[in-house]
Each structure stands twice: as C-alpha cells, then as structure tokens.
C-alpha cells in the first residue's frame, strides 16, 4: 500500500509535525496519485524529528528534520517522481545510512511497533500478531503462566527491579472476592519518556500485558494511572480500550473464556510521589498521594484493602513478547539475574538522542559513544546521570559497567526508569546535584520527617555552596544527613533523593571544593561565582546583546566593541545565547 506516514508522537508534534502533516495532506490531495496519508507514533529517533516515511508497501524510506519546505520537496521529488531526497534520508530499506547504526544496535521488543503502526487502529496491532499471546495465556492455567513469567527473569522496569513473576505469585496467592491490577503510567522521572512512547505508539501492547497479568493473578478490574501531563497517551489509551472492548478482548467473558476484565483510566494530577505504588493507590482512592508503611504489601492488601498488583508500562508491554518468544529466549537475552531488554532514554549532550532498546548487560560506553554517537560538537564527556533524579552520576572510568541491576548498584547508581542524561564539561556537577535535590524536595509529600526536613536541610547547604557561602564542614554534613535520609525515609523518594548528591561528592569532590575554597565554579554555571565577559577581539559591535540584556548592563556604540557593567550584570547569560559571534563567555 502506497503511503506517506507522519510521525505523530508528542515529541514529533513538539518539533512541528502538525504543520508538516497539514501540508502533506494538502499536497497529496492535489496530487491524487494513489498515495495515502497516515500517522504513526515516534520511533524513538527524537534527534531527527519531525519524521516522515514514504513507502510503496515493500520499500521504505524514512525522512528526518522535515519542515514545510522539505515536506513539499518529498512530495515533488519522491512521491511524484520517485526521486529520494538524500539530504533528509534517515533510514531506508534500500541503502545504508549513518543513522542506521542507531536502529541496528537495538533489539526492539517493547518498541517493536512504535513508529511502525497507526496506534489508533486495532487492526494494525492485530496484523502484527497482536493479542495472540493473550489467547495463548488464557488457554494456560494461571500457574503455568506465572511460571513462564518467572522463568523469563523479567524484573520491574519502573525502577525497583523486583522480579515480576514473583510479584504475580504473591497476588495470586491472596484470597479475596475482588482483586485489582494496576498499570503505573505515572512516569514522573524527568528525563524518562519511554513509557510515554509506548502508551502513544503501541497502547494495545500495554492492554494485552494487563489482560495477561490480570488473568494470572485473578483480577477482574484494572486501572491505568496515567499522569495528566501525557494527554496524547490518555487519548490513545481511551481509544484502544474502546476498540478492545468492541472486539471482546476486554470486558465480560473475554473471547468466551469466562474471564472478565474491565479497565479504567485514572489521571494523575501532578505529583511525582504518586509513582510510588502506595501513594498511587491513595490517589486512586481520592486522597493525598502519601505513601504508607509496608507490610501489608499491595499483593495482600492494596487498593480499597483488596489484593492488588502494580506493574510499570514497559514491564507490561514486554509480557506479550515474552510469551511470543518463550521465557528461556528472553532470559538468555539479558545478563545474569536481569533478563531481556531495557528501553533507555538517552538525552543531554549526545549527538543522537532518543529511545534505545538494548539487551540488559550492555556497557554504558557502548550506549553513549556507539549508539548515541558520542558528545555533541565533539566536546568532552563529563558525567552521565542514570536513573532519574533519584539515581546517581557516574564518571568516564565507570563507563565499562554493564547496565544491569546488580552491577550498577555497586557504583552507587541505579538502572531506575532507564533515563540517561549525558553531561559535558559545560555542566556543573554541584549545580546538577542541587537541581535534582530541589526537585525531590519539591515533590516530597511531607509525611515523614527524614525526607521532609532532611532534603530541605541538604538543599539549604547546596544553595549555600553554589552561592559562595559553602564551608568544608558542609560536605561532611551532606554525607551524614544524606545517609540518614536514605536509611530512615518511609518510601523510595526519600530513600533515593540523596543519591545525586552523594554520588557527585564521591566522584566530583574537587568541584565541590572549588566552589567552597576558591569560590569558583569551574564549569562557568553558578551565577554567584562567575563573571561574564565580552571578548573585545571578537565583538564587532552589532548591539544585539545590548538590546537583549534585561538589566541594560551592556554599554558600547554600534560597530565598536561592547562591555558589560559588572555592577548591573545578574549573570543571566541571555547575552551569551544571543551573540552570533560567540564573543561572550563566562568564567
């Protein structure tokens, strides 16, 4: 089938896919030569968005960085006359491109359908073999099914890494008149968007996983708790649920098996802590999202005090694939105790940023330098932050660490959600630690003293250090308070909030000392410790920075070098960003 397919995920739309879609629609209607317009979601190659695919049914050509002009060119050259627009070609079935490396290095199981199907058409999902795994599962006994999942060695992809098969066994063992199955789609980690991609790109995979899991534990009611910041994901999930119900794949007496499952969507309301399972359940019940003590564990007493199982989006989307390929094959794909693949969101200062799905056990070096292409502008690697704001920062010599749950824990970092933010030498590690801690502090629910007060005290100290008021005792205080917060917090938010601070102190102590002893920020970031200068040799006097400066702190006539009045300057760096001659720098 001849098609022009537009990548219509949130990131594609954010990059301008809507305008591209509208132009293509107009042009194709005018051309009227048999090519139809369709949409898909994102492939995970975010660094090339907006993306458009042209296919005749067998040959496929995927274009990137498509704007209105390029869109018109694609129609004119390719769709009309069969000529490929080489400069925008990202990948194709007919040639080998540089970007091909990004896709070839991956093992796309969870992301299998993302960017390949129209997520709002169940027929597309069924054509790929969708719901066949569910049919197989419903024909097994629940013991056989749970055994299979246990053998696959799949561990919770939300961050905790708990063996999924074991979790399902606990819930199955509980006896009750009602059980619940919850999909945790609250993806709150800044820097993580793999769940969003799966929800927007392959919602049926998640529903199929929920169906299989609910059957395995005996739950007849399901909830998908999705953060409100993902409106497109919520929209596509609602469509998918309706479609599945129409085909008797959800609802009463599914496919005549006697098993029933009704799935509802609950929207989050903007609270990171609601990604924690007990806070999530409190939120569904209509309360403030505050975690509680465990035991009792949700598998015994969860939502409305009934046995409940909660799984992450990525974990659930993997389940149908595990049944398809078999548990042993999935386990073999991984590394030691961590089976299968993991989707990483590689962002920050890398050349190729986006979603990468690879077998567990790959090294960080391979991920960052091979697949993601290394550092932007060929600058120097400084650190990689792993696992979200409650993960850790690692240095270059730790990059040979294989990415699996156990190996990473030894370094002080975690796999977490799979978010990976790469920093170059223009990033200040103290500022980064402060940034993460301020996020955790803001999101702390306030219930337990260690987290509520501990994170606040740590933040006060970090503010002092970045503002030039730090002392050497502060470093010991941070370590001490950090250890206490980790040990005695009620939930994993407090339990991991000190990690960025503790790992940056461990691996970047000299940077802290520079801030404290020399009152200097080596990376040129911390406002109170830097000065902005204009290089008179490079400045032609174009007056752009003068006009942009919110403090009117720049003086100088047109065509003669400008100068910054340091008394008025607030180090906001707007001038630095606006200078077309790179004549402004921070020290």
């Amino acid at each position, binding site marked *: 089938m001849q098609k022009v397919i537009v990548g219509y995920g*949130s*990131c594609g*739309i*954010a*990059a301008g896919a809507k305008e591209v879609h509208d132009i293509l629609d107009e042009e194709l209607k005018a051309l009227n030569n048999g090519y139809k317009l369709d949409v898909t979601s994102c492939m995970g190659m*975010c*660094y090339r*968005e907006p993306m458009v695919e042209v296919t005749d049914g067998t040959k496929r050509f995927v274009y990137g960085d498509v704007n209105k002009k390029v869109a018109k060119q694609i129609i004119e050259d390719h769709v009309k006359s069969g000529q490929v627009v080489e400069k925008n070609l990202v990948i194709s079935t007919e040639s080998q491109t540089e970007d091909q490396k990004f896709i070839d290095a991956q093992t796309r199981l969870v992301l299998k359908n993302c960017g390949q199907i129209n997520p709002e058409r169940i027929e597309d999902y069924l054509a790929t073999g969708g719901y066949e795994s569910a049919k197989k599962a419903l024909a097994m006994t629940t013991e056989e099914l749970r055994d299979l999942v246990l053998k696959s060695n799949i561990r919770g992809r939300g961050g905790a890494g708990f063996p999924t098969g074991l979790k399902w066994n606990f819930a199955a063992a509980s006896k009750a008149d009602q059980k619940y199955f919850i999909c945790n789609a609250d*993806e*709150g*980690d*800044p*820097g*993580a*968007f793999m769940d*969003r991609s799966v929800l927007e790109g392959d919602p049926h995979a998640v529903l199929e996983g929920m169906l299989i899991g609910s059957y395995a534990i005996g739950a007849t009611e399901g909830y998908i708790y999705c953060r*409100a*910041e*993902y*409106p497109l994901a919520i929209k596509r999930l609602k469509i998918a649920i309706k479609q599945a119900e129409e085909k008797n794949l959800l609802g009463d007496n599914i496919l005549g098996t006697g098993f029933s499952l009704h799935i509802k969507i*609950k*929207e*989050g*309301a*903007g*609270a*990171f802590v609601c990604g924690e399972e007990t806070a999530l359940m409190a*939120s*569904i*019940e*209509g*309360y*403030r*999202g505050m975690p509680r003590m465990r035991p009792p564990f949700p598998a015994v007493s969860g939502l*409305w005090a009934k046995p409940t199982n909660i799984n992450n989006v990525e974990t659930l989307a993997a389940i149908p694939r595990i049944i398809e390929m078999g548990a042993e094959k999935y386990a073999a794909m991984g590394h030691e105790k961590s089976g299968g693949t993991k989707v990483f*969101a590689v*962002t*920050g200062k890398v050349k190729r*940023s*986006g979603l990468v799905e690879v077998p567990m056990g790959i090294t960080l070096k391979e991920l960052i330098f091979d697949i993601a292409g290394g550092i932007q502008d060929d600058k120097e690697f400084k650190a990689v*932050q792993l696992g*979200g*704001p409650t993960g850790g920062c690692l240095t270059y010599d730790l990059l040979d660490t294989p990415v699996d749950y156990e190996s990473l824990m030894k370094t002080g970092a975690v796999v977490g959600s799979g*978010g990976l*933010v790469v*920093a170059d030498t223009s*990033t200040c590690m103290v500022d*980064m630690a402060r*940034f*993460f801690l301020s*996020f955790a502090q*803001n*999101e702390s*629910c306030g219930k337990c003293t260690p987290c509520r007060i501990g994170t606040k005290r740590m933040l006060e100290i970090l503010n002092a250090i970045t503002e030039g008021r730090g002392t050497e005792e502060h470093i010991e205080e941070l370590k001490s308070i950090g250890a206490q917060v980790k040990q005695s917090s009620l939930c994993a938010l407090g339990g991991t909030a000190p990690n960025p601070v503790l790992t940056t102190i461990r691996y970047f102590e000299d940077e802290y000392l520079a801030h404290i002893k020399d009152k200097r920020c080596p990376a040129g970031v911390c406002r109170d410790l830097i000065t902005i200068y204009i290089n008179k040799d490079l400045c032609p006097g174009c007056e752009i920075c003068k006009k942009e400066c*919110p403090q009117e702190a720049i003086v100088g006539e047109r065509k003669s070098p400008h100068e910054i009045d340091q008394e008025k300057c607030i180090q*906001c*760096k*707007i001038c630095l*960003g*606006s200078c077309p001659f790179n004549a402004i720098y921070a020290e």
Partner: protein
Amino acid sequence: MTTEVLDFKPTQKILDKFEGKKGSLIPILQNIQEEYGFLPEGILNQVSVKTGIPMSQMFGVATFYAQFRLKPRGKYTIRVCHGTACHVGGAAQLSEAIEHELGIKDKETSEDKLFTLEVVACLGCCSLAPVMMVGEETYGRCSPDKATKILRKIKKEEGQ
C-alpha cells in the same frame, strides 16, 4: 476568594456523572477545574455539602496536587519544563526570558489575564530540550528568542 457568583449547574452535571463511583474526588476536581478554569471556593463548599466530603479533605487534595489552581488562571497556561534534559539544555534562561517578557513569575498570572506561568518537572520530550507548552501546543528546541516571538505573536492575535 472570588466575589463573582458562579453558576453551579455545570458542577451538578459533574457530580451526577460520578454518582456512586468510588474514588472520584480527583476526577471531580479535575472536571470542575476544566469547567471554571480553577477551583472556586464557593463551588467547593457546595460540593462538600452535596457529597458529604469534608472541606478539609477537599482542600487537602486540592493543595497537594500541582495541577490544581485555587485562583483564576490566564487564558493561556505556559508550562516551562525544568526536567533534567531541559535543565542541561537551558531551561533557566528560557524561564527568565518568559518572566521578563510577561512581567510575571512562576504560578502568577499576567495583568492582562492572558498568561499564567507554570514551571513543571518534566513534559517527556527530553530530546527536544528545552521545551515549553502554551495551552495544548508543545514547542521543542525552544530558545528564549523563539519563546519571546511566540508570546508576542499571541499577544498580537489577542489584540494586546
């Protein structure tokens, strides 16, 4: 507290929709905010009387979740992402440019009631950092310059 008397009928429709459904407080509040643009105290009072949910519980929930507003919002809500990748990508400069252009800070509404500014933790478009949302529109790779142009365009369209 707003002194304007608001029509309760839309709220009654919302309460009817969720009649008998467990754990509906958050969706009810979300629907009320969708209708009025924020959570008016007077409306919440009446909801408390009709549902039996204590005002303290409703306030507790409304103040816990970042999404809820107890004051009226501007016509356009600007969400600036301050997640990790955006932070590294220049979110602070983007925020400042917006604050400078509109004369407001986080959680404030501009005098012409057009814009409300909100700093959010992560919009999930990390590869397109820095990211800003205006209403339902998402703008990736949004430099301070680009943001200013977008806001000025909206102001012009609104006749300001």
